[in-house]
């Protein structure tokens, strides 16, 4: 039997898509500049179906890409031309939520925010909060080690995944990790998180839940320059405080957010949001120290949320910033490079200079506490050469981040978009080690082929992988 015939035996007609019109929605993810036509899309409802589909792919040597809601900003769930897409959104059951054990066991298609919603009656929540959390799925969060606004204090997805059931690219089912916060033996589930689907597909995910903080103290401070806001962040850190979140927005983002959701932000050069959280007595003391630090930081205006409604209002503008900036421009690229916190000022000055040099506007919204920048490069795809110029500018920003001692990506992942920049951050031996691990677990190069690793071509046997890389890096 051919591949498609065998697929038909596994999936009923409504859950196997092969017609052009049916495939179209799966041709790209949130990085819409890239499109690829898959051979077929399947919609599994149970993990056994995923396993069977992966085994079928292995037997026939067909590349596959697992995807959830397709919110990847790095093209991480871009299909492989002629390959299979495993769309996992129907595997959206929370299999177990055990408040006593503080864990949730979920299928990969469960939406991030849904876990916190279901845990809320028990006073618990799931900490990682990527901006996409009302839509993005945990399978995707696991693949990309998603972050959010609270990573300095709480870490990323990898820190909140306790166990995984995974189907390897060869179709073997393995259980990694366990229900305890502690384990013995190599942290294989920790290693799987962030490998962007290159080493298999997560079938079940065990998450740790945290008690929801008792009290919040949310402060909004206005500054005359981005640098002054950046310096304020350093002063907060030097004071020994550990806020749950610190966010900065520049003038362009503030204006956009204001136009979109009327958050009531002052129209200034830079806004800093600082949020403290914890037991109420502790937050009270921390707030006093924060007031003193911000008072000495040259803020031109300070607002403190006096109610949950005011707190939500402060966050509303920040959370809407991306889509709001989108309204300022026909198209934009989002980068998410990281710099050491103390180099933020330097990075922002250089981004400003690059923006002028390329004649393209760049809006800055970023997680200042963890040095994770989110420059939005605005362009008009209908103007000849503007996309290319925007990509070049975005690339310059990535190189800048690496040069300053940071990373290409804080949370969006490498995907297809940034794999060409991997040699900027990693030495050939580092990348070859990744290639070797990939090859050992996925000898046919089927799982999310063409992502992350710059040496990986569309065919694993094209001229021999190692030879290609050897020459590339010679």
């Amino acid at each position, binding site marked *: 039997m051919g591949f498609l015939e065998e697929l038909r035996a596994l999936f009923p007609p409504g859950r196997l898509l092969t017609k052009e019109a049916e495939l179209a929605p799966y041709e790209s993810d949130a990085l819409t500049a890239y499109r690829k036509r898959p051979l077929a899309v399947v919609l599994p409802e149970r993990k056994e179906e995923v396993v069977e589909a992966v085994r079928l792919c292995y037997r026939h040597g067909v590349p596959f890409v697992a995807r959830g809601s397709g919110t990847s900003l790095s093209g991480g769930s871009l299909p492989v031309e002629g390959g299979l897409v495993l769309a996992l959104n129907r595997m959206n059951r929370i299999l177990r939520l055990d408040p006593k054990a503080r864990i949730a066991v979920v299928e990969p298609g469960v939406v991030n925010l849904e876990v916190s919603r279901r845990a809320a009656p028990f*006073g618990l929540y799931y900490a990682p909060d990527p901006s996409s959390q009302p839509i993005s799925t945990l399978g995707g969060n696991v693949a990309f080690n998603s972050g959010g606004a609270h990573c*300095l204090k709480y870490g*990323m997805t*990898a820190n909140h995944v306790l166990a995984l059931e995974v189907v*390897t690219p060869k179709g*073997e*089912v393995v259980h990694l990790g366990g229900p*305890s*916060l*502690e*384990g*013995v*033996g*190599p*942290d*294989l589930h*920790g*290693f*799987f998180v*962030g*490998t962007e689907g290159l080493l298999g597909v997560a079938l079940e995910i065990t998450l740790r839940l945290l*008690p929801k*903080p008792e009290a919040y103290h949310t402060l909004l401070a206005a500054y005359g320059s981005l640098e002054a806001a950046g310096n304020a962040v350093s002063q907060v*850190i*030097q004071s*020994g405080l550990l806020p749950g979140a610190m966010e900065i927005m520049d003038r362009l983002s503030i204006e956009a957010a204001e136009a979109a959701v009327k958050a009531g932000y002052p129209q200034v050069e830079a806004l800093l949001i600082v949020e403290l959280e*914890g*037991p109420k*007595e*502790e937050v009270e*003391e921390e707030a006093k120290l924060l007031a003193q630090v911000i008072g000495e930081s040259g803020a031109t205006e300070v607002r403190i949320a006096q109610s949950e409604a005011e707190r939500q209002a402060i966050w509303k503008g920040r959370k809407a910033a991306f889509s709001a900036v989108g309204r300022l421009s026909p198209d934009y690229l989002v980068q998410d490079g*990281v*710099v*050491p*916190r*103390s180099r933020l000022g330097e990075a922002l000055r250089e981004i400003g200079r690059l923006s002028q040099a390329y004649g393209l506007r760049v809006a800055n919204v970023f*997680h200042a506490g963890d*040095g994770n920048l989110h420059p939005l490069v605005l362009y008009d795809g209908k103007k000849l050469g503007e996309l290319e110029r925007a990509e070049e500018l975005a690339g310059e920003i990535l190189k800048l981040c690496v040069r300053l*001692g*940071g*990373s290409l*990506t*804080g*949370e*969006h*992942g*490498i995907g297809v978009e940034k794999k060409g920049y*991997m040699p900027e*951050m*990693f*030495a050939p031996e580092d*990348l*070859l*080690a*990744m290639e*070797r*691990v990939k090859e*050992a*677990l996925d000898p046919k190069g089927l799982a999310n082929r063409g992502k*992350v690793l710059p040496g990986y071509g569309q065919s694993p046997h094209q001229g021999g992988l190692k030879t290609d890389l050897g020459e590339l890096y010679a």
Partner: protein
Amino acid sequence: MPEIFPSSLEEVREAVRTHPRLRPKGGGSKPALSSPQEGETLLNLSGLRGILEYAPEEFVFTAYAGTPLKELEETLRAHGQYLPFHPPLVEQGATLGGTVAAGLSGPMRERFGGLRDFILGVRFVDGEGRVVRGGGKVVKNAAGFPFHRLMVGSLGAFGVMVELSFKVFPYPRATRTLRVGLAHTAEALAVLQDLRTLPLDLLALDLVPPATLEIRLGGFPESLEKRVQRLQSLLQREGEVLREDEAHWEGVRNLAFLEGSPIWVKVPSRLDLIPHLESLPLGPRRYLAGGDLLYAGLEPHGLKALRDGGIPHLVLRGAQEVLFPSPPEAFFAPIKRALDPKGRFPLG
């Protein structure tokens, strides 16, 4: 037993290329993991020590793997910072690399997480003598395969760690400990269960069998009194308040309660597993992190009971078979093959 003392990255590479089987050793505080077996050459990493980069305002440092934790913590403490996963066996000479290889955390992991939550990057020499870097030196990073996380608990299976980068946090300005005795284990477990789900931001939450809870709080001195009182009224017990609690917790994290036991083990635990664990012939012991982490001292029959009961554990001293169960073959073996094809390093 042959033993070599590399003092540079280059010498580690040389050692790996010239010796067919190697057993890395840091401070030797976990002899079950660092004692060479038949045919192994001991790779003593105590010469690769020292902090390479430390920017307190970044909450990040990079140090050689052979750096003793004691040395490291002194430097951090001078800047009001600490390793929030609270590594054990510091007094006994534990090194950063050995702690990663064993995957060990201590009582204060309850507050912000364990070792796996603070490791940011690694530079290691793989089984072919190649230098590989994973992760980075910033607190947030999603680029490339996270080899640094693979090192946690690896027992050195994939390579010799040379440099490690970690996230650190400010040390609490003040601490207090509340010790509460309950009537019996079941009651202690019920209280433990309640405390785990409340937003109390506890630094440590330990169960000392049969029925004592030790609860540590950290924060501003002005708030601590109120928080201790709130805890007392929540528990409806006065308990015993330790205002000077540092020495006590140093003893706990150095596993002083295991002294005298021939076999030391780490057991990943859970609240619902504790009644079963308590029915086994275990020696002196303490459940850390709200019941999720057990360190126990055993006699040989206690170890046998763990193994017969299929309970995962890691032996730190006193037995040859250290890891139970073995890592899942279908995922572990290919990674091992990719990084250590000739099987120079421990495990597999």
